[in-house]
């Protein structure tokens, strides 16, 4: 009985946080892109546009839900449902932290620990092609069909280097469960270099990490590989004919896939929740960062450009101060510090996603395929061979 209650609580927390993250990821993306392009981004709804995600959700919910008469109705309705549900499932096996004591019950900071976790994620990513392919085909529109075809071909091609890049950390960890892979990366070389897989001696997995991230960009259909929805060629690609919540489903699926890929990269290569340097010092890093943020926000008040808004930054500073205090309480540190390290690593990778979108132009389709098959795939194979050699010899 205890198991069910704890599981329900965990599911509720993860679901709420995940949904909020998805909504605010879009706000972060718009803000970051805007600042890369010297604009201000969303600014009207709430302070600094912070309520923009809420407004977007209301807009999408209340828009007219068009059902074009020429579509294949069953598959047209099935496709967004498939896309979003498959994308949301994979968060359930991501471990966010170590085993913790939760009111007398020892439990993992993870909804469920599958022994074949990494295969589960691969299976989901293999099946999630159908959402896009079916959307493209059932819309009965040449742009949609081309988008769907491009996306399925791209996902099949990039699945190969992605899987080959995953195999090397699996060889090192000798296990398929995310929890075991992350715990195998605990500890430090010489007392200060973390044993994360990208720093792994004698053969660091940095190449596998880069290959994984590149293939991850292609798997999630993000720039520079977003050929499936290239606006100047295909209107909007596979979701041209979708409106209202059905469009929002594809949107949510894309962001959920991004979060999953970054979480998997964090667990496989960046040591999951293990901090960058040894424990007694690293416990105070979150507090220090929050304190620094609070000071920066207070100092922003003196900036002449912020003369009109005397309210937002003090509030932000107060929030940061409260966070600093929370992170400093020893009882909460056992829960919050691993979470902080995990989220900051995954967050940095998510920022990289947005950064790349803001800086790189789109590939041409033949370049994309050429790159996957003649460069990325051999590189992944070589990296795997080198890793296997090192594992066998050392």
């Amino acid at each position, binding site marked *: 009985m205890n198991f069910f209650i704890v599981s329900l609580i965990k599911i509720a927390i993860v679901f709420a946080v995940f949904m909020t993250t998805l909504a605010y990821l879009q706000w972060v993306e718009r803000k970051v892109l805007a600042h890369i392009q010297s604009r201000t981004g969303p600014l009207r709804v709430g302070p600094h546009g912070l309520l923009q995600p809420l407004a977007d959700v209301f807009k999408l919910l209340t828009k007219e839900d068009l059902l074009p008469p020429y579509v294949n109705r069953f598959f047209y309705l099935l496709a967004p449902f498939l896309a979003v549900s498959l994308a949301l499932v994979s968060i359930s096996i991501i471990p966010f932290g170590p085993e913790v004591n939760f009111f007398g019950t020892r439990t993992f900071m993870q909804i469920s620990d599958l022994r*074949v976790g990494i295969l589960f994620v*691969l*299976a989901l990513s293999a*099946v999630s092609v159908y959402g896009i*392919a079916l959307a493209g085909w059932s819309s009965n529109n040449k742009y949609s069909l081309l988008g769907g075809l491009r996306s399925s071909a791209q*996902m099949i091609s990039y699945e190969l280097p992605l899987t080959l890049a995953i195999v090397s950390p699996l060889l090192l960890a000798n296990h398929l469960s995310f929890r075991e892979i992350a715990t195998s990366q605990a500890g430090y070389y010489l007392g200060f270099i973390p044993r994360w897989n990208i720093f792994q001696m004698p053969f660091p997995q940095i190449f596998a990490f880069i290959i994984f991230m590149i293939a991850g960009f292609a798997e999630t259909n993000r720039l520079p590989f977003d050929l499936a929805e290239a606006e100047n060629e295909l209107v909007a690609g596979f979701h041209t004919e979708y409106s209202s919540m059905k469009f929002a489903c594809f949107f949510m699926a894309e962001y959920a896939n991004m979060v999953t890929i970054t979480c998997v990269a964090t667990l496989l290569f960046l040591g999951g929740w293990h901090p960058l340097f040894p424990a007694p010092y690293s416990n105070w890093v979150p507090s220090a960062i929050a304190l620094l943020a609070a000071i920066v926000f207070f100092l922003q008040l003196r900036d002449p450009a912020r003369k009109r808004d005397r309210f937002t930054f003090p509030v932000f500073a107060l929030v940061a101060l409260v966070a600093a205090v929370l992170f400093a309480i020893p009882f909460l540190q056992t829960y919050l510090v691993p979470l902080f390290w995990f989220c900051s690593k995954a967050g940095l990778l998510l920022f990289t996603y947005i950064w790349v979108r803001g800086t790189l132009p789109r590939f041409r389709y033949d370049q994309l395929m050429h790159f996957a098959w003649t460069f990325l795939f051999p590189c992944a194979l070589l990296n795997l061979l080198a890793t296997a050699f090192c594992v066998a010899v050392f």
Partner: protein
Amino acid sequence: MDTFLFIVCAIVSVGCAVNLVLQKHPISSALSLIGVMGSLAVLYLLLGAEFIAMAQMIVYGGAVMVLFIFVIMLLNAGTEKTSAKSWFAQIAGFPLLSAFVALLAFLIKVVLPPLHPVEFGSWVGGTAEAIGMLLFTKYLLPFEVTSVLILIAIIGAVVLARKEID
């Protein structure tokens, strides 16, 4: 709980299999096949074969069926037309089918050794470690021969594809 899941998945798998034959559109048939494979994966999982279940989803549910759907979409195959049924199938079809099923049931009942009822969760040899161990010790020769066979198929495909370009 296990029995309930088994019954649901068995019904879904048989339903999808029947639907696969009945549907007239290739895409509908292909999707039904994915349904069959998905429910089979759940059945494997119920029996404790977690690695096989995931491999089923990755290889058959993912790679193979995506290729099927891809080709169907690329060729833009339309709905099939039903041809006139032969009089033999109309008259003798159902009796022959029932005779065949009865024969199968009889053979399973009489010829095969008595089967023990399946206990869900009693078998633990389905982990990745156990399967890897078996593949690289007991079944090493079939495993290697299969990989050579697949290599031959790949090279054959490349040779066939090259001819077309020249």
